């Protein structure tokens, strides 16, 4: 592999990594704080992307559409939490799996009804189109760099939120010891709603930014969802730091898993399987992930 | 090596830390065959943590646990149970969806084995049902055999848990607050049951009710802040200055 290809793929891997992190950050908190399996998180990613596509069309500006899409998905997320999920916190994992599986079917179909079955191709916003030569001889799309930068900025912002604010303190406490937060006299259901809405907003951001890179289509969240699970499980449920580290690892492994085996003459079967092999490997040695929040 | 006087259970220098908290502070303890050895101490003293280490659910940071002459410090929970350590929990752990008889039969099966038999109906197996029914009688639940555990009264569930522990034919019973959450009648029944077991079983008993402890125990150890501050016969403990200062204080309520 040439050095240039290596660098380009590393950037691609990092960009996938931060996208995965945006997905995983919210979901790992839902898993950790509410002890809740939510399969429908990928649907919020999809909904965010569709909102972004439509708002871009209406407003004519991706940069206007982005916050609108995030806000709209936040509302959808909070509504879903209030209507469907809230009653499931006290149920067992099987119930949660089943109910949120139903939500996936619902959202995929509803999206098809509203936006039609045809994929939408979003343009890269003009301001960010084109390529730059970060390294001489290897032009790299500006938009992808922007995604990477936004992802890192959000990761920093989240770190600040979790480590430095009262809300973050409650979230951390909740992720490692649910009963304690209740004992502190905090309105648990509001905390849950906030965390869920935050997760929805982050998923929407990931989906909206992914729009111009991939295609916006029904079911786009499902593939992303499962990769997100891999990230969360490797990182350790409830741990933001774990989610970040694992997201970067998974992003890189997934990206290089697609080119390295072919170059080494290995069966290409390994490509799609790489991250799952990685996950099995990690869990074999650390059954609760790298940075489990709960003892 | 196992001298005639060696305890059935010998704990030596046990230490358990939870972060900065020293939950078990260099505990050494011996339980003799046939005795009821009570452990008392205020809430949070580390009693449950100690039992959990004896049973194998929590691994200590340091120290050894010897049982019947073998070092069991590194063994899993189930391996220790097969050696003869049975326990009850502070919060009842039973099979809620099973009938009382099925609960005990499960425990009988634990030491009877043949767990891979996958054809013959277990509920028609006299080798399991008969001993299970006998033990239910012994703890006074004979009439409740066919009731689902979830439908038993709290006190009955506690009795059932002890029946299960007995059904494994243990050499040592670890009982973590068997009267926890019980009403007066229920407590009296449980006390009677424990009195019945006295002399027949070796028991490590954690209990807050001092009347019960002083009536039943052959020896008592006092645990405060994870540390054993005294061990002795009930009279010695009553008279012990440290214990009075640290624990019995103004006389317990």
């Amino acid at each position, binding site marked *: 592999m040439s050095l240039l290809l290596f660098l380009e793929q590393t950037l691609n891997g990092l960009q996938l990594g931060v996208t995965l992190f945006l997905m995983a950050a919210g979901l790992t908190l839902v*898993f950790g704080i509410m*002890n809740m*399996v939510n399969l429908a998180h990928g649907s919020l990613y999809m909904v965010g992307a569709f909102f972004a596509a439509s708002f871009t069309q209406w407003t004519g500006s991706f940069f206007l559409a982005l916050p609108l899409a995030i806000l709209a998905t936040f509302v959808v997320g909070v509504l879903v939490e209030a209507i*469907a999920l809230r009653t499931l916190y006290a149920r067992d*994992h*099987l*119930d949660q*799996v*089943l*109910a949120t*599986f*139903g*939500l996936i*079917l619902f*959202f995929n*179909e509803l999206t*098809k009804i509203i936006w039609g079955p045809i994929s939408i191709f979003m343009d890269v916003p003009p301001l960010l189109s084109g390529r730059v030569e970060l390294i001489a001889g290897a032009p790299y799309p500006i938009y992808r760099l922007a995604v990477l930068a936004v992802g890192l900025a959000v990761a920093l912002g989240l770190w600040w939120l979790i480590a430095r604010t009262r809300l973050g303190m409650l979230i951390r406490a909740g992720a490692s010891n649910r009963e304690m937060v209740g004992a502190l006299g905090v309105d648990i259901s509001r905390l849950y709603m906030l965390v869920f809405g935050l997760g929805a907003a982050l998923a929407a951001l990931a989906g909206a930014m992914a729009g111009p890179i991939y295609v916006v289509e029904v079911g786009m969240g499902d593939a992303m969802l499962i990769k997100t*699970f*891999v990230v969360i*499980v490797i990182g350790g*449920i409830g741990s933001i730091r774990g989610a970040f580290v694992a997201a970067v690892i998974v992003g890189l492994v997934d990206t290089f898993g697609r080119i390295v085996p072919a170059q080494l003459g290995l069966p*290409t*079967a390994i490509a799609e*399987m790489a991250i*799952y092999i990685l996950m*099995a490997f990690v*869990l*074999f040695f650390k*059954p*609760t*992930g790298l940075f489990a929040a709960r003892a | 090596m196992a001298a005639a006087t060696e305890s059935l259970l010998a704990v030596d220098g046990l230490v358990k830390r939870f972060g900065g908290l020293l939950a078990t502070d260099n505990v050494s303890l011996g339980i003799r065959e046939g005795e009821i050895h009570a452990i008392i101490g205020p809430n949070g003293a580390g009693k449950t943590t100690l039992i959990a280490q004896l*049973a194998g*659910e929590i691994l200590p940071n340091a120290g050894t646990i010897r049982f019947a002459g073998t070092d069991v410090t590194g063994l*899993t*929970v*189930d391996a220790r*149970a*097969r050696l003869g350590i049975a*326990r009850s929990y502070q919060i009842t*752990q*039973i*099979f809620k*969806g*099973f009938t009382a008889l099925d609960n005990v039969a*499960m*425990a009988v*099966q*634990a030491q009877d084995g043949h*767990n*891979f*038999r*996958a*054809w013959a*109906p*277990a509920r028609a*197996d006299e080798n*399991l049902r008969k001993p299970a029914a006998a033990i239910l009688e012994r703890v006074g639940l004979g009439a409740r055999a066919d009731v*689902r555990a979830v439908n038993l009264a709290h006190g009955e569930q506690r009795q059932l848990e002890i029946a*299960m522990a007995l059904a*494994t034919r243990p050499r040592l019973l670890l009982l973590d607050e068997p009267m926890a959450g019980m009403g007066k009648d229920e407590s009296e029944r449980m006390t009677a049951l424990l009195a019945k077991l006295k002399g027949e079983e070796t028991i490590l008993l954690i209990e807050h009710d001092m009347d019960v402890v002083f009536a039943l125990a052959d020896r008592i150890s006092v645990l405060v802040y994870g540390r054993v501050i005294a061990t002795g016969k009930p009279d010695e403990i009553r008279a012990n200055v440290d214990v009075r200062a640290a624990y019995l204080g103004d006389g317990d309520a």
Partner: protein
Amino acid sequence: MTGLKLDRRTWFVIVLLAALALLPLVAIATDNDYQIAQFRRILIFAIAAVSLDLILGYGGMVSLGHAAFFGVGAYIVAILNWHAAREVPLFGMMLGTHNVLVTWTAAVVLSGALAGLIGLVSLRTTGIYFIMITLAFAQMVYFFFVSLRAYGGDDGLRFPGDTVILGLIDTENDVAFYYLVFGILCAVLYATRRLVNSRFGMVVQGCRENERRMKALGFATFRYKLACFALAGALAGLAGALFAANESYISPSIMHWTRSGDLIVMVVLGGMGTLIGPVVGALAFLFLEKTLPDYTEHWMVVFGPILLLLVLFARRGIFGWFLPKEDRHGGSH
């Protein structure tokens, strides 16, 4: 004492099985013969659902990857048949065969072995981790078959199956093949019923009820759960083998993770932890899947919320409603 209760359950089972036994005859009498292959499919998924009930309903193991074992069983049969038809050597030998004694056995053994391997890692985890890791392993298997270009990859594999099974049953003969599948379903139901009530079955249920207590009693729970997991995988593989024989065409989509979700829906819809319930669940699910689209193309938008309502208000499933209260297994509660 329990006579009346048992009667109700037994009646249900008798009526259900009798109805299934009569189904092809009714179909022929009403000129609906073409539907018999469809009915066979229902029975095949019923077998898969029953196998999932073993781990889900009795073992309390929420596996989101069961379709992988079903798919592997199907692919084993397909690949062996394909090699036999093309006369292409497999692993350098003429391993391809049409003989169902070989192909079906291979399907059962290999999917069981795969389940054993996957269980070996997965069962070290619990709770959400277990759900996620079974899902991930299933994805791994799914992508493995997607990437097997030699066997059609994404597009799947069409193969000429054996037309005469053991010199007795003609798979072209819809009715005879139906009764073979029906017979296998009955055998599976009987064997699993014995199993769950045996010593082994009690251990597995004990693990569902309270694994901590099981360990404290002295059970090395891991090995029993693993055995149950592998057995369920093997049975799913058997269902997959029958599926391959039924369709003569398979593709990786049969082991897509949503298929695992469908299997869970069948089990819970019919009544988890009852064995017969999942048969009803498979019937109901496949019936809905077939008829709802007649009313609206967007039937999923109805079906999704139905699942939510099922969870919230009808957790005992269809068969559960027929059982007296004490007789219901609570599942993993």
